């Protein structure tokens, strides 16, 4: 069983379109995250949710809207896609906030905006 699974793995779309990435974890963790990894491999946190509540929003444009229907799911919807949104988006989870231990990452969703 995959601990953190995200879909789709690949997304190719035109500028201006709207797209969603889904994430689910079966580890029973309380906290979930979205990270963006650019072409230089820099990993930047976008959002952090704890028990469905938004904890961290790292000055991400309003075009990005996370949704957590329950603590096992954290989806990411992106409106009006721009070229600069091209990146790999990683979902992750951890138990009771970052200090409690390790992050478990999904395999990533590679978004290409043309």
């Amino acid at each position: 069983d995959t601990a953190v699974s995200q879909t789709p793995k690949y997304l190719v779309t035109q500028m201006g379109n709207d797209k969603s990435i889904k994430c689910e974890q079966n580890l029973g963790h309380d906290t979930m995250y979205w990270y963006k990894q650019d072409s230089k491999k820099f990993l930047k946190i976008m959002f952090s949710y704890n028990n469905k509540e938004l904890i961290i929003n790292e000055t991400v444009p309003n075009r990005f809207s996370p949704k957590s229907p329950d603590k096992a799911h954290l989806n990411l919807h992106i409106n009006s896609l721009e070229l600069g949104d091209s990146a790999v988006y990683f979902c992750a989870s951890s138990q009771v906030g970052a200090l409690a231990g390790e992050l478990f990452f999904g395999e990533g969703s590679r978004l290409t905006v043309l």
Partner: protein
Amino acid sequence: GQQVMQIPQYQHVQEGEDFTTYCNSSTTLSNIQWYKQRPGGHPVFLIQLVKSGEVKKQKRLTFQFGEAKKNSSLHITATQTTDVGTYFCVEANDYKLSFGAGTTVTVRA
């Protein structure tokens, strides 16, 4: 912004040699984690260091947390081709893990 700085950004190593990657912060770190990301893969947790001066070993990998808790290092001995990837140090604080820029390691056989 980014709080932990990693050096070097790239490390080209001859198979069998040792190398070290360093992580530095201008502020005291509550704890530090290390992750490895293989090419095309996702970051995978290696270790967490919490105590001042802490040293932990995992086979050929040695992790160290500085006495002042402002720096950390990862030393790999007898590098193998399986060590290829990007190693990240990560500061964990209040539901937020801030990644360093990473050290990307390539190995010459």
